[in-house]
């Protein structure tokens, strides 16, 4: 692992690019702490990806196939023909610079090639040289350059420094989405075996076992049993989840991060408790160990791999004969579900239009995919007074909410989580308006960047988000950052420790479960984490 940075040093950022040097003449410097390790042979092989071999980005020789230039060229042409977005975004940028200071990686690093416009120009310059008359004729004058090995390395380095959060696209006067360029650029690098292992390993694992850590079904079940015991210890209620159960009405799919990593595990306990609570009201739900990953790491590889991993959800829904699917709190899972799933693997005509069995609400917005967001589902329950909630049980928390990039700018999911949070806790404070909702800042570790070896990059990328949290912490005493994304839950604790300190991280359904009043439960003295509730601090409950 790279030397971990220190906050004071990391904060010294110069946002002024050099005066005289042009970016085309600045060769790539592949710096430790910024890049992730190269994709491993076994992980690429597991999903039949090309040029599988162990390689190290820090070494000179990347062991590329001999015909890599042709492979990229063919792949580039194919994608220009397949994606209007790509072709258009190659042509119409006027380099007005409106996106330049919108990227969290530029704000946190000052590296000019992290300006979205320049990240895309890295690809555009090659596009001009290969496919435009002006570029062929005038070369560098027209902003065109050859795809040399150095340029390829630069592509790789910066394509895997973009979390595809789309903040730049919001501000672009033409809607140019650098994430779209990154996604297709990553597809190109995958054609010659250039990915990072923090993406290729989860892809291989999700494909085989259903979760990104490669945990086998019995271990998955063990984890759940552990949560069941924990819940019983805290509440006296024994929840009884079912797995791979045929004939259930609803299939529940959540990112496996919720099952395996704190503090997502508490959110997972929240799901279990909510489902148990609703059982008596008619909720008939099952989990799946096969389709047990909502997070689609294939999306960080290629559209094809995203489709392959996504296909398991419908396949499992069909096998189990459920009526519709409920999806947990996840970021890019929801972008894939919202924007791609029905196109990838639909029509889901073996499913029925989702109807809440508790409230009778028809989820018309999901009548195509037949897939409902859990927070939507819960908001509807609360609106219909179906949950007995005691928000004072979250009084020890002063909560702010992080809009995850993907549900925000790829879905428009803003009000539902806020509605739920306001119903389950009494102290909710928004971060400044330029940092939330559609203008939200990325956690800095999305799109497969949450490895350990690129810690400096992650802390830099997360700076704008952390800075906004610090603001509400200083102003209102916020001590809990809530979110609806498993990657957020996985990476925010480190980010908070680095920049803010003493701010916890929680999923929304952890707070729902804290507030949820069960019939016949023990008097609660702690929350799901075993932290004493407000007013219970002095109780002898150790």
């Amino acid at each position, binding site marked *: 692992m790279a030397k971990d940075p220190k906050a004071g040093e990391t904060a010294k*950022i110069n*946002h002024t*690019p050099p005066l005289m040097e042009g*970016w085309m003449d600045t060769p790539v410097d592949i710096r430790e702490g910024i890049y992730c390790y190269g994709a491993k042979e076994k992980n690429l092989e597991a999903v039949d990806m090309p040029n599988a071999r162990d390689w190290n980005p820090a070494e000179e020789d990347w062991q590329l196939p001999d015909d890599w230039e042709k492979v990229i060229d063919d792949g580039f042409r194919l994608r220009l*023909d*397949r*994606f*209007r977005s790509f*072709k*258009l975004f190659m*042509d*119409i*940028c*006027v*380099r*007005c*610079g*409106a996106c*330049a*200071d919108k990227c969290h990686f530029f704000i946190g690093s000052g590296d*000019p090639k992290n300006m979205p416009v*320049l990240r895309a120009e890295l690809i555009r310059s090659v596009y001009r040289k290969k496919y435009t008359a002006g570029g062929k004729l005038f070369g560098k004058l*027209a902003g065109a350059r050859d795809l040399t090995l150095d340029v390829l390395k630069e592509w790789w380095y910066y394509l895997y420094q973009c979390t595809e959060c*789309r903040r730049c*696209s*919001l*501000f672009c*006067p*033409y*809607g140019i*989405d650098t994430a*779209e360029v990154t996604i297709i650029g990553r597809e190109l690098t995958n054609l010659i075996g250039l990915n990072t292992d923090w993406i290729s390993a989860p892809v291989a694992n999700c*494909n085989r*076992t*259903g979760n990104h850590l490669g945990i*086998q*079904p*019995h271990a998955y079940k*063990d984890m759940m049993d552990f949560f069941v015991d924990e819940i019983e210890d805290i509440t006296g209620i024994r929840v009884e989840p079912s797995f*791979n159960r045929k004939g259930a009405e609803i299939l529940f799919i959540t990112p496996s991060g919720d099952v395996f990593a704190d503090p997502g595990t508490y959110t997972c306990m929240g799901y279990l408790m909510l489902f148990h609570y609703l059982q008596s009201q008619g909720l008939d739900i099952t989990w799946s160990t096969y389709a047990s990953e909502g997070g689609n790491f294939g999306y960080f590889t290629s*559209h094809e791999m995203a489709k*392959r991993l996504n296909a398991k959800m419908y*396949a*499992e829904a069909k096998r189990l004969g459920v009526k519709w699917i409920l999806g947990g709190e996840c970021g890019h899972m929801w972008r894939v*579900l*919202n924007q791609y799933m*029905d*196109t990838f693997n639909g029509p889901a005509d073996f499913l029925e239009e989702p109807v809440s069995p508790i409230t009778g609400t028809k989820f*018309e917005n999901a009548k*195509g995919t037949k897939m409902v967001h859990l927070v*939507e589902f819960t908001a509807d329950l609360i*609106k219909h007074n179906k949950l007995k909630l005691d928000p004072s049980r979250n009084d020890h928390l002063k909560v702010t909410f992080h809009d995850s990039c993907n549900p925000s700018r790829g*879905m*428009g999911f803003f*009000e*539902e989580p806020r509605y739920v949070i306001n119903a389950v806790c009494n102290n909710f404070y928004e971060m400044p308006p*330029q940092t939330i909702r*559609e203008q939200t800042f990325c956690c800095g570790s999305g799109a497969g960047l949450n490895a350990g070896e690129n810690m400096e990059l992650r802390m830099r990328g997360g700076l704008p988000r952390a*800075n906004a949290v*610090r603001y509400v912490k200083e102003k209102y005493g916020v001590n809990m950052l809530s979110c609806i994304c498993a990657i957020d839950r996985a990476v925010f604790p480190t980010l908070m420790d680095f920049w803010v300190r003493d701010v916890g991280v929680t999923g929304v359904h952890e707070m729902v479960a804290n507030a949820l009043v069960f019939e016949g439960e023990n008097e609660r003295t702690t929350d799901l984490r075993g932290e004493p509730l407000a007013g219970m601090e002095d109780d002898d409950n150790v």
Partner: protein
Amino acid sequence: MSIVVSSLAVVLIVLIPWVGVGAFNLQYLFGVVVPYAALATFIIGIVVRVIDWARSPVPFRIPTTAGQQWSLPWVKYSKIDNPKGTGGVIVRMLFEILTFRSLFRNTRLEYRLKGDGAPKIDYEWEKWLWLAALLFHYSFLVIFLRHFRFFVEPIPGFVHLLESLDGFMQMGVLPLNGLGLPGVYLTDMLLMLAVTYLFVRRIYVHQTRYISLPADYFPLFLILALGTTGILMRYFIRVDITAVKELAVGLFKFHPTIPGDIGVIFYIHLFVISVLIAYFPFSKLMHMAGIFLSPTRNLSNNSRMKRHINPWNYPVHYHTYQAYEDEFREAMVEAGLPVEKEPE
């Protein structure tokens, strides 16, 4: 470097007709052949480019959702920024094209280090780029429309209206008035001001200077040259307007004639605009057509409601449940998970 190359190119473009008409009397070449060629390049070029873009499909719905989605009936949704149907998309596009709505959101990063080494990051009000862009485009549009008085006979009513609106300042602008000069058009000044601002901003803001290519300066300089020659012609080096109109109307009726002496400055003006429109389809100026096709803006966010087809969709091999159970069957049975096939 980029600036030097682009400005030299524009100087050359100004010199060509100067020499061509002034020294070699090539009025027909610069008054007829070049404008026709340029216009043809412009029209064919744009059509080809747009068809080329349109030939590539939009396989997935990827709108940037800049507001609340349409979901539960009691949740107020953002009809324009996150439209669910065509109506909303049309309004969104109108706002985008007529008011540059996305650019209006622009903010500016303020990054400072506090005494204790902690950063203080602010996102400041920044509307100048939006304002300059808006002024630039609308002034250009008005000037373009005003030019109809040269091309068509009789002059359409809206052109007169525009002229009087545009020239309403003519009473007040000194010292130009009273020197026997025509009234000053507001848009002439605004266009020059806006283009100058955009140019200065490009150099002055470190980040835009760093990303700027000759292709960014070149059109700015061309437009500056265009505006300068136009203004010179109107206010200072007067040309024979009747003759200009005779040429323009002739061009538009496809009966081009070269009237008497118009003045070299006119040919320079005409050549600069010819270069600009001929250059148009090959440059970033195509954003004018491209914005209509931008999938992040012109699609509705209804892909969970309605299925959209990817025309090049192909089946993929995914890891099936059967393969999964085959691998983990014993472990699953041991954990009490149901299986399709009991182990042997």
